[in-house]
C-alpha cells in the first residue's frame, strides 16, 4: 500500500491519502485526468478495471468515488475521490475513453447528480426523461410532484445529445450532437417486446438486416432504490436487494449483509455461512437454468424452455420450503439468516444433485449440440478479453471471453475458501462460449452443493446483532459473485442509523453497455441472441 502511495504522490503531488478498508486517494479535479491516465497506463499502477463509479453529494461538494482493481496485481483495489464545489455547473473530466465501462456509469451520475463529464461523447440522461427537472440523488433535491408531473407526451428530441469539449485554452465548449443520423433506419425494440427479458428498450439502426448501431434506452422500471435507501434503516434496506436482480436474490442480499457486517465487525456463525453459500449456489443453478431456457426460447426452441423450467422448479421448491417464497426470498439478515433450514432441505438438495447431471445431458443433446443452435451462437457477438476487461464484463459473460474474474476466487468470502470448485473459462469469446460457461457452472454449483450438503455445521444461524444497527462513520465496498457477475455494494456512513449513501454496482448495468459493441455488424436476429447470451436482468439495471 505504502508503495502505491509513493508512486501516486510522485505522479501527482496534490493528492491526499486516507486509510480505510481500501486506500482512498483524494485528488483535485484539475489533476484528475492526469492521474486517471497514469492509473490506467503506468505499468507500476496498472489498474485495468474500473469496478465501480459512484456519484456522491457531500452537501458542500459534489463528486465521484471510483473503485479500481488491478487484475495483474492480485486484484488489489484502490479508491479515488474527486470532488468539485460548484453546485451550479459541476464538471469532472471523463474517464470513459480509458475505461469504456464508464460511458454508461458517467451518464448515470449525470442523470442523478447533474455532474457533467468533460469529453464524454454522449452526455444524455440515462434513466430519466430528458425533460426531468432536478437531479434526484442530490441531498437538496426537491421531490415536489408539481415539478415532475406524470407526463402524457413523448419526450421531445430523444435523439439530442451533447458533448463537452475542452478547448486548448482550457475553456469548455458545448457541442450538440445527434444519436442517429437522419438517414438511419431505426427500429425500436421494446420496452414492450417479448425478448428483451423485461422492460428494456433498444433503438437499433439497421441496414437491411444488419445492425449498424444500438442505442440503449433504460429506466422504464427504475425505482430509485438508492435514494429510498437513504431514508431507511439498514435492516429496512435489505429487502431491496431481492428486487434488483431477482435471479440473484440471495447473492445480492448476501452482499449487502456482508457489507454491513464488515462495517459492524460482526462474526457470522459458521452454520449461517454454509447455509448462505448453499443458497447462493442454488440460486445460481436456478438462474442459469432460466438463462438456458430463455436463450433457447429466444432462438425459437420453445420446448427447451420448459425443460429448463422443469428442473428449476425443484430449486424453487427448496426455496419455498425454507424461505417461504419462490421469488424475493428475503432470507439473509444482518448477522446470519432469518430462519433455520426446512427438515426436507438436505433430502431435496440431494434429489437435485441426482437429477441435474442427467438433465444437463438432455439439454446438451437437444440444444447445445444442435447444428442450428451452434450456427446461431458460434462467432456471434464477439467480445475480446481486452474489451471484457475494459467494459468490466464479469460473470459468465466475462468468463466466456476467457477472463478469469470469479469473485469467489479473487476475493473469497463466506464459506467459499473451504470448498473445491473450478472457475469455468471458455475461449470462444462469443455467445456460445457464454452459454457454455453457464451450463458448466451449473455442474460446478452442483459440486459445491455436494460438498456442503452433508457438512452443514450445527450451531447458531444468526449472530447477536444490536437492536438498532448503527454503522460507524466510514466507507465500505463489498463484492460477491452473483449469477451474472460481480455485484458490489458501497456504503458510506456518517454514523447514523441510515446510510448516507448506498450504491449498488450491478453486473447487468455493465452487460447492457456492450450491446452496441457486440451487435454492430451482426444481424437483427443476432441482437436477440446476443442479448439472451449476455443474459441481463432489467431490474438490476434499473435499480
Amino acid at each position: 500500500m505504502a508503495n502505491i502511495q509513493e508512486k501516486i504522490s510522485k505522479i501527482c503531488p496534490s493528492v491526499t491519502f486516507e486509510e480505510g478498508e481500501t486506500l482512498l486517494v483524494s485528488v483535485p479535479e484539475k489533476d484528475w485526468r492526469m492521474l486517471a491516465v497514469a492509473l490506467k497506463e503506468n505499468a507500476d499502477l496498472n489498474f485495468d478495471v474500473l469496478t465501480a463509479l459512484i456519484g456522491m453529494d457531500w452537501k458542500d461538494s459534489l463528486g465521484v468515488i471510483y473503485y479500481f482493481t488491478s487484475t495483474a496485481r492480485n486484484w488489489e483495489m484502490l479508491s479515488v475521490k474527486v470532488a468539485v464545489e460548484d453546485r451550479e455547473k459541476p464538471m469532472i473530466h471523463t474517464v470513459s475513453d480509458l475505461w469504456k465501462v464508464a460511458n454508461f456509469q458517467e451518464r448515470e451520475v449525470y442523470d442523478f447528480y447533474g455532474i457533467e463529464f468533460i469529453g464524454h461523447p454522449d452526455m444524455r440522461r440515462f434513466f430519466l426523461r430528458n425533460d426531468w427537472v432536478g437531479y434526484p440523488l442530490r441531498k437538496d433535491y426537491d421531490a415536489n410532484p408539481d415539478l415532475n408531473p406524470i407526463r402524457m407526451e413523448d419526450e421531445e428530441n430523444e435523439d439530442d445529445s451533447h458533448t463537452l469539449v475542452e478547448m486548448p485554452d482550457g475553456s469548455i465548449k458545448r457541442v450538440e450532437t445527434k444519436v442517429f443520423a437522419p438517414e438511419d433506419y431505426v427500429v425500436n425494440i421494446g420496452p414492450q417486446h417479448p425478448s428483451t427479458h423485461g422492460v428494456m428498450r433498444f433503438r437499433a439502426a439497421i441496414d437491411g438486416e444488419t445492425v449498424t448501431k444500438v442505442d440503449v434506452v433504460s429506466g422504464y422500471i427504475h425505482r430509485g432504490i438508492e435514494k429510498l435507501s437513504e431514508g431507511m434503516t439498514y435492516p429496512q434496506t435489505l429487502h431491496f436487494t431481492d428486487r434488483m436482480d431477482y435471479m440473484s436474490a440471495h447473492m445480492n442480499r448476501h452482499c449487502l449483509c456482508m457489507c454491513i457486517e464488515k462495517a459492524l465487525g460482526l462474526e457470522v456463525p459458521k452454520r449461517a455461512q454454509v447455509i448462505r453459500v448453499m443458497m447462493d449456489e442454488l440460486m445460481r443453478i436456478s438462474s442459469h437454468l432460466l438463462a438456458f431456457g430463455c436463450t433457447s426460447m429466444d432462438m425459437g426452441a420453445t420446448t427447451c424452455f420448459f425443460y429448463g423450467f422443469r428442473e428449476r422448479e425443484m430449486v424453487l421448491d427448496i426455496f419455498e420450503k425454507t424461505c417461504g417464497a419462490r421469488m424475493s426470498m428475503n432470507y439473509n439478515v444482518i448477522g446470519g439468516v432469518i430462519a433455520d433450514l426446512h427438515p426436507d432441505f438436505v433430502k431435496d438438495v440431494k434429489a437435485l444433485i441426482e437429477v441435474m447431471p442427467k438433465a444437463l445431458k438432455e439439454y446438451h443433446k437437444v440444444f447445445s449440440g444442435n447444428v442450428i443452435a451452434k450456427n446461431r451462437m458460434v462467432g456471434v457477438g464477439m467480445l475480446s478479453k481486452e474489451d471484457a476487461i475494459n467494459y468490466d464484463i464479469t460473470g459468465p459473460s466475462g468468463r466466456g471471453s476467457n477472463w478469469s474474474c470469479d469473485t469467489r476466487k479473487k476475493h473469497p468470502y463466506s464459506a467459499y475458501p473451504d470448498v473445491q470448485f473450478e472457475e469455468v473459462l471458455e475461449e470462444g469469446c462469443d455467445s456460445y462460449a457464454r452459454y457454455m460457461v453457464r451450463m458448466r457452472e451449473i455442474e460446478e454449483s452442483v459440486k459445491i452443493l455436494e460438498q456442503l450438503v452433508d457438512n452443514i455445521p450445527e450451531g447458531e444461524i444468526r449472530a447477536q446483532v444490536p437492536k438498532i444497527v448503527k454503522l460507524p462513520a466510514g466507507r465500505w465496498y463489498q463484492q460477491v459473485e452473483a449469477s451474472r457477475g460481480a455485484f458490489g455494494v458501497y456504503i458510506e456512513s456518517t454514523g447514523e442509523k441510515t446510510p448516507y449513501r448506498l450504491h449498488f454496482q450491478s453486473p447487468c448495468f455493465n452487460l447492457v453497455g456492450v450491446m452496441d459493441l457486440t451487435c454492430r455488424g451482426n444481424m437483427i436476429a443476432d441482437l436477440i441472441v446476443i442479448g439472451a447470451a449476455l443474459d441481463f436482468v432489467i431490474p438490476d439495471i434499473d435499480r
Partner: protein
Amino acid sequence: MFDFSVVTTWINNLLIGCMPGWAAVLVECIIIALCVLGAYTVLALFYILYERKLCAWFQCRLGPMRVGYWGLLQVFADMFKILIKELIPLKGTDKFLFKLAPYVIITSSVTMLACLPWGRGMQIINYNIGIFFILAVSSVGILGILLAGWASNNKYTLIGAMRSGAQMVSYELSLGLAIITMVVFAGTMNIEEIVWAQDGGWFIFTGHIPAIIACIIYVIAATAETNRGPFDLPEAEHELTAGYHTEYSGIHFGFFYLAEYLNLFIVSGIASLMFLGGWMPFHVNGWDGFNAVMDYIPGIVWFVAKAFFFSFVIIWFKWTFPRVRIDQMLALEWKYLMPLALANLVLMAVCTTLGWHF
C-alpha cells in the same frame, strides 16, 4: 375400393333431371363450395387442437384440458372469441390493401385445398396439369403476406414481409424441383393419374433413392414454404413480435392463422400425394389378400392419415429446433438444397429412363 364418382354422377343426373343445365352447374358449384369451406373449417379447428396437443406433449405439458372433455371444445371457444373480436382500423395504413391481404391469403389456400384428391373420384377438378396448378396457386399466398407487411405501415411487418418474400421465392424452387422429380417418375402431372400410378406401390418405395431424397427436400422446403419453425422468420416472435400480421386483429388475424394451419395440411396432402400414394391404400404387388383387406379402409382415411403423418413431422420440427437466421436460411436453400434437388432430378431422370426402379 369405393368409387365416389358414383355419388357425384347420381347427384349430377338428379339435378339435370329437374332443372336446366346452367342451374344444375350453379347448384353443384354451391354444394362444392360449401363442402370445401366446411372441410376448411373443420380441418383448421382440428389442426389447431392437433398442434396444441402435440406441442404440449413435447413440452411435458397437458395442453388445453378445461373446455370440454380433454380440451376438445377449446378450439370452438377460440373460434368464437376470434369471430367476435373487434377489427381495429389503424391510422396511416393503406386501408384497401390492409383489408385485402387476408383475403388474398385465404383464397390461395382454399383454392389449393380444392385441388387435392380426397379419395377415388373425390376430386373437384381433374386437370391434366393439376400439380402445376397447385404450385402456381401456392405462389399467390405470398402476395398476401407482402401486402399485409407493406400496408400495415410498421417496421416490424415490413421486415417480416421482406423476409417472407425472400424465403418463399427461394424455397419454391426446391419445392418445385422436388415435385418435378416425382412428376418425371410418374410421367404425368394429372393428379388422378399420379395416384393410380402408385397402385402397385407408393412412389417412395418404387422410386427408392431419388424419391427418398426428393421427399426429404420436399419436407424441408414445405416447412419453409409454410413459414413454420425452424423457418418461421417472417413472424419470428422474438425479433419481430408477430412479423407481417402484427397489426391485424379479429377475424383478419384469424384468416392468417387459419391459412397457416391449412397450408400445413395442404403441403402435407401434396406430400402424401407425391410420395405416399394419396388416397391409395398400402398395396404390395402380388399380395392380393393383403391388398384386398387394405382396400376396405376408405380412401379418404388413407389420404387424411398420410397428410396428418407429414404434418406431425413438420410440427415435430417446429417444437424441437431453434430458428435459423435469414442468411443461413437462404444459404441452406441456394447452396445446398437447390443443387441437391437439381442433381436428384437428373438422377431420377436416369433411373426412370433406364428402368432402375421397382
